[in-house]
């Protein structure tokens, strides 16, 4: 594979990740696509500022993240629609299906500051250092938000389970 084809392949993978992340940020499919397209337009205009050899993925995620923040500041609205994650239809085990829904519901309850570190790490492509750079956070702050978020998630899911058990009994 030549360098151009290799770059195109990498970019395609990154754009796929950007689209997922944009959905989590905007919670709306159309807005997510607009956000990704705005990000790409900005990246094209700012391509001179990208240093060859530096991490292209983090550079793109940062543009997306900052675009999202400034868009939201400008709009000054909070979109409280449900988190746009697909219904776990493909999961045939009913116990697992219920737990997945509980986890996604719990994720939605978390403040964004805790939710984004969890999501970025779950994308399975970013190290802590890269995810912290994407969110413009010091590594220590990133660590503690991720830790607190995961613990909160576990407790919310645990509480739901306990409530359901009580109802059954």
């Amino acid at each position, binding site marked *: 594979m030549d*360098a*151009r084809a290799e*770059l*195109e392949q990498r*970019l*395609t993978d990154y*754009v*796929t990740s950007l*689209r*997922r992340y944009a*959905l*989590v940020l905007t919670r709306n*499919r159309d807005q997510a*696509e607009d956000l*990704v*397209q705005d990000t*790409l*337009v900005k*990246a*094209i*205009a700012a*391509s*001179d500022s*990208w240093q*060859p050899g530096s991490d*292209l993925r983090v550079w793109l995620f940062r543009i997306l993240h900052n675009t999202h923040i400034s868009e939201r500041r400008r709009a000054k609205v909070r979109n409280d629609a449900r988190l*746009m*994650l*697909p219904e*776990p239809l*493909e999961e045939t085990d009913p116990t697992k299906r219920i*737990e*997945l829904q509980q*986890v*996604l519901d719990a*994720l939605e309850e978390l403040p964004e500051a805790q939710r984004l570190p*969890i*999501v970025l*790490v*779950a*994308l*399975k492509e970013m*190290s*802590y250092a890269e995810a912290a750079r994407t969110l413009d956070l010091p590594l220590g702050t990133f*660590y*503690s938000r*991720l*830790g*607190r978020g*995961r*613990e909160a*998630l*576990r407790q919310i*899911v*645990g509480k739901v389970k306990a409530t359901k058990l009580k109802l059954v009994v």
Partner: protein
Amino acid sequence: MTSAEQIDFNAYLDGELGPEEAAEIEARLAEDPEAQARLEACGRHKDMIADALTAIALTGPVPLKTARLEKRLAAKLHMRAAPTRTFAAGPWLQGVTQIAAAAALVAFGWWGHASWTPTPSGVPEYVSEALGAHTVFANDIVRPAEFTGGDVDSAAEWFSAKMGVPVLAPDLSDYGISVVGARLLGTKEGPLAQFIYEDGDGARYSLTLAKHPDNQPIAPLQVVDYPNRAVGYWRTQDIDFALVGKSNDGSIQSLAANLAKDI
């Protein structure tokens, strides 16, 4: 669990620890079933969220506009990553690598061309300008063309008056390519007319026309291939032409050959 331990467990879960630190965590987990249960729950949640995120992207095709932008960004970044590499040379020009490198330098320095005189190379100056203008305008949707759609014809009239020779945008619809915009470029070689075309896949071509200088010979078609674009140029009695577009598939060579024959 202290917050430091919490951080360690998360780092362990995400594979951020070295082997020694990981072994230390495993030893602690072996003695603490409750912590182990917590870690397992977090691991399960992480996998579920990851699977749900992965499923998102599979629920619809990439919109055309996103795909186009992605393609353009790839072109931009590739140019940025490979401006000094050795270019693949076509068989039709001797010393083409040197010429291509010189032209590429002109192209990358396009905005500064007014204050910088390139060393003479085998590529005519108007071709260097055409390459630079293609890089700056045709591939860049952020800067809109000055004339679009139906205005291109009236633009051509104005260009003709400015340049002192009749110019128009050739109809390339037989090749599945349509004109999307036009602009007049002021260069030290005089005004150049640039017509921008687009094919069905969104790939951009630009055809640049310059008034043929009286003191220059006419020249048959020559094609120079770059890593990410190609230019075909030829000079006639009245007008000099440069067609810039994507490389690798020979489209510029065949398109330019047909145009040079017909015009």
